[in-house]
């Protein structure tokens, strides 16, 4: 009997947000849904805490079945993501209280939550695709919420790229499903059979591009700064915090870590480390604090992908767990920092310090400030990254992250509220404080369950010094840039997204040509002649090799 209820708890992870979404059809309920948003992720949190060993939840009898199951890395990410969704939901009920269309926002929020939390437990390919599609639609709705021209553009870029990525992912999954023995659609079975397939490289390429787009791997990251900066603050918090992790968890499940694939591992590691530095380089040129944070997400996602890549090339099956631990710290910290942007904007300069100090500490923890969760996270991924070039580069990127985070704090300070004595409402402060505390408490609490973890190791003096070095280096670079560096070049938000604008600009010309061709073909002589030509063409086609 106990097995029974925990499987239903897995179903409720997706079921509760979907049920709440269903009742949003009625306008009266929809308008009052905002305060209830924090309730939707509660089954997810409960499942992460108590149902880690739950049997899978299976829906359907035919050959095609939806399966939801929880593995250990998934449960870590599910728990912190659920926490972030709850906190952000509580935050949103105050922050979005007065905005028009809050009913629409609540509906999109629930769609995104259902999709995001569901992917962490999706065990078969159809469920994964279904939840990713739901997630994309909901996130698109949240990005365009404010309906400024920038929001429209960001959501269009996001939707187009997301759908393109999902199309490639679909093709890869169909190829995998064809090759899996017994017609099983489980990701676990597909991943097991993947290394031995003749089309292994094509499938891996499709999966990496499709899921990398969701995770923001350079150069597929262009939607991220646009979308995360354009969305309202609580939406950006969950988008940058939880939603980008779905690409990572899916990648971690598809990649065959039991088989050593050195070329693919090298490629992923290289791409990830490149992204880690690229995000920093572009991020320091941005002015808007949300854009800086978005580029920091690009950078951190790159690092996590590099961890997965090193694990893939060295046949380390623990790499997904280490990556999940690192990602869980990022979920919490990035969510806190985004929410802080909203809190700080409502706080006057005189009351700013109680907000600013924790924000600075947490921001630096992303770079690995000793004694914070970030240091633990960096220590946990030291194993997969190894001592070679990848490890060294990862250390250097920690310095870069510190630099970027100091730049963020610098930009944040300029966005304080006009009234010196203003304080943010309790509805914003309380959730923010809760998740800020979680940033420290949760990584420390979980550290013992991650491999390579004993309490003594990260507290050893040389470990503390090793963690402090990159932070000091980053701080030094920041100071030097501030003092002696000239103004940095202005890079537009979304950097290479300008290429998309150029492509979109040329499209109407080709569209016009096709339309004129269509008009020509729709003249009676052309169409009837085409009919006769087709008769002959079919005759010839059936005659050749017939």
């Amino acid at each position, binding site marked *: 009997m106990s097995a029974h209820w925990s499987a239903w708890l897995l179903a409720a992870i997706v079921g509760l947000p979907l049920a709440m979404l269903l009742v949003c059809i009625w*306008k009266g309920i929809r308008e009052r849904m905002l305060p209830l948003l924090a309730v939707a992720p509660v089954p997810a949190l409960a499942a992460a805490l108590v149902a880690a060993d739950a049997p899978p939840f299976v*829906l*359907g009898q*035919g*050959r*095609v*079945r*939806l399966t939801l199951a929880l593995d250990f890395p998934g449960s870590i990410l599910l728990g912190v993501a659920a926490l972030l969704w709850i906190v952000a939901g509580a935050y949103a009920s105050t922050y979005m209280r007065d905005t*028009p*269309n809050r009913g*629409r926002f609540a509906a999109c929020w629930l769609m995104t939550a259902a999709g995001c939390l569901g992917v962490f437990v999706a065990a078969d390919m*159809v469920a994964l*695709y*279904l939840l990713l*599609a739901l997630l994309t*639609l909901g996130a698109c709705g949240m990005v*365009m919420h404010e*309906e400024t021209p920038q929001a429209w553009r960001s959501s*269009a870029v996001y*939707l*187009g790229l997301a*759908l*393109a990525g999902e*199309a*490639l992912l*679909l*093709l890869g999954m*169909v*190829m995998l*499903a*064809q090759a899996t023995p017994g017609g099983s659609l489980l990701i676990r079975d597909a991943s097991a059979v993947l290394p031995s397939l003749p089309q292994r490289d094509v499938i891996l390429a499709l999966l990496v591009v499709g899921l990398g787009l969701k995770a923001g791997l350079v150069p597929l990251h262009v939607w991220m700064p646009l979308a995360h900066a354009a969305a309202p603050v609580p939406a950006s918090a969950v988008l940058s915090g939880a939603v980008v992790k779905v690409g990572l968890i899916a990648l971690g499940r598809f990649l065959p870590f039991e088989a050593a694939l050195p070329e693919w591992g090298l490629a992923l590691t290289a791409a990830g480390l490149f992204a880690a530095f690229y995000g920093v380089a572009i991020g320091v040129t941005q002015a808007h604090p949300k854009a800086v944070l978005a580029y920091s997400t690009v950078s951190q996602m790159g690092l996590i992908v590099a961890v997965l890549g090193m694990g893939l090339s060295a046949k380390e099956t623990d790499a997904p767990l280490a990556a999940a631990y690192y990602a869980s710290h990022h979920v919490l910290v990035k969510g806190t920092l985004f929410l802080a942007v909203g809190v700080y904007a409502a706080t006057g300069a005189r009351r700013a310090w109680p907000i600013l100090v924790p924000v600075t500490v947490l921001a630096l923890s992303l770079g690995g400030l000793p004694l914070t969760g970030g240091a633990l996270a960096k220590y946990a991924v030291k194993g997969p990254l190894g001592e070679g070039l990848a490890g060294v580069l990862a250390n250097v990127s920690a310095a870069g992250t510190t630099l970027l985070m100091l730049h963020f704090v610098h930009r944040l300070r300029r966005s304080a509220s006009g009234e010196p004595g203003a304080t943010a409402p309790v509805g914003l402060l309380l959730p923010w404080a809760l998740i800020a505390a979680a940033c420290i408490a949760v990584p420390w609490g979980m550290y013992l369950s991650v491999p390579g973890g004993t309490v003594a190791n990260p507290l050893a003096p040389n470990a503390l010094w090793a963690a402090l070095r990159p932070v000091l280096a980053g701080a030094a670079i920041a100071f030097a840039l501030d003092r002696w560096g000239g103004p940095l070049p202005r890079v537009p938000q979304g950097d290479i997204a300008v290429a998309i604008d150029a492509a979109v600009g040329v499209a109407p010309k*080709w*569209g*016009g040509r*096709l*339309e004129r*061709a*269509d008009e020509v*073909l*729709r*003249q*009676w002589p*052309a*169409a*009837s002649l*085409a*009919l*006769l030509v*087709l*008769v*002959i*063409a*079919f*005759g010839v*086609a*059936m*005659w*050749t*090799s*017939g």
Partner: protein
Amino acid sequence: MPPMTTTPGGLLLVLAVLVPFVGVLAAFALGGRNAQRVAMGTMLAGLGIAIAVAAAVARSGDALVYLLGGWGVPLGIALRADGLAVVMILAVAVVIVGIGAYARADFGTPPGVREARAPLVFWTLLLAIWGSLNLVFVSGDLFTLYVALELLTFAAVPLVSLDGRAETLRAALRYLLYALLGSILYLLGTVLLYGVYGTLDIALLAARVQPEPATLAAAALMTAGLLAKTALFPLHLWLPPAHAGAPPAASAVLSGLVIKGSWFLVVRLWFDVFPDVVTAPSAQLLAGLGAAAILVGNVVALRQARLKLMVAYSTVAQIGYLFLMFPLALDPASARLEGGGALAGGMMHAVSHATAKAAMFMAAGVIYAALGHDRIAGLAGIGRVLPVSVLAFTLGGVSLIGLPPSGGFLAKWLLLAAAVATGQWWWAAVMLVGGLLTAGYVFLVLARALASGAEAPALRAPIPRSQEAVALALALGSMLLGLVAFTGVHLLGIGR
């Protein structure tokens, strides 16, 4: 090999064809308001018969056969319902009932008038289309199929020009002439086949057909003629003005169902009569035309200024998907067309498109009646006054894009699997690009409808809630059609 004698339950096939036509005669004879009442009753009866046919086929596990007059083939005429026919009969019945429910508000005879032209014609011809479609699905020989095809065209053409404007009359005349050109080519092919093989019965022909010059000519003529009736690119000249100019209920039936009749015939011919005759190049040619339809149709749809024209061009594009399945069903080992995943994908796409496109035309019709125009640029804020219709339009569009759990997604999965299995990557790429382009115009309309900057537009006339409800129901049906994969029911393979 399907059975060659009348099976128990075969009478249902006769009823499936006769009941709508009896309804036509009764509606025309009784006239006035009674036409609508007769139509309603006939629709319920017809739906019941369709369900009974499906149940009989599923229960017996074999095709239903009825020999007209008890005379055996080749002299007599056989009606046959295998899995393919049953699926189409069911789908058509459901959509027709939905369209009937929708059209009650538009085509009611006004009070104080004994008989009005448009409602009488609409209800009569709706039943006639239904009967002709059923005849197309169950006919067992090629000449009966010709008669059914002509009946279908004659019933569909007047619906285009129902409002009597010059532009729709022109569209109807163009449709009729082009369709007649197509069917006369089909008849020419039939004549050639009779001349060579001495029979037109599908089952007998399947056994006798050889790749001779006359057979190749017949296959080419019949295929091309049917493509003209199905409006596959580049033979689509009549479709956009006809479907955009017709009243919304008529557009729904034209785009959703009438097109599927001639498409079903191509499937019948290629899979049942000519599986050994069609070659890889001809299948690739057919799919190539389909790919061109997808590309051109979607791009031109994106550029339309009017909603109904956009939906009509979307039909042009979706018809292309229906023809992508032919090379994917070609078994490379035996070099003949085998039913299987590709056939299932094509059928699923046909059914899903029928429901989704009907819903989209219904929603567009509601918007037109509410605003007095259907300019896409003028749709700003309509989502607030007509949320149900916008939702129906969006769900129908999402099904066409192919997002789960819609029928369009299941169809795309099956076709992609077939493309991967036969190594024909290019068709997979075409399908994925088509999905992206479809997403383009669906979200264009949705974004316009949800824009909150403008004031909510005023409604010209009150909209009957039943119309929006029917549109939403059909759209939901299309969205949930993919769930049939979970039920494990296999109808398509019966009797093949």
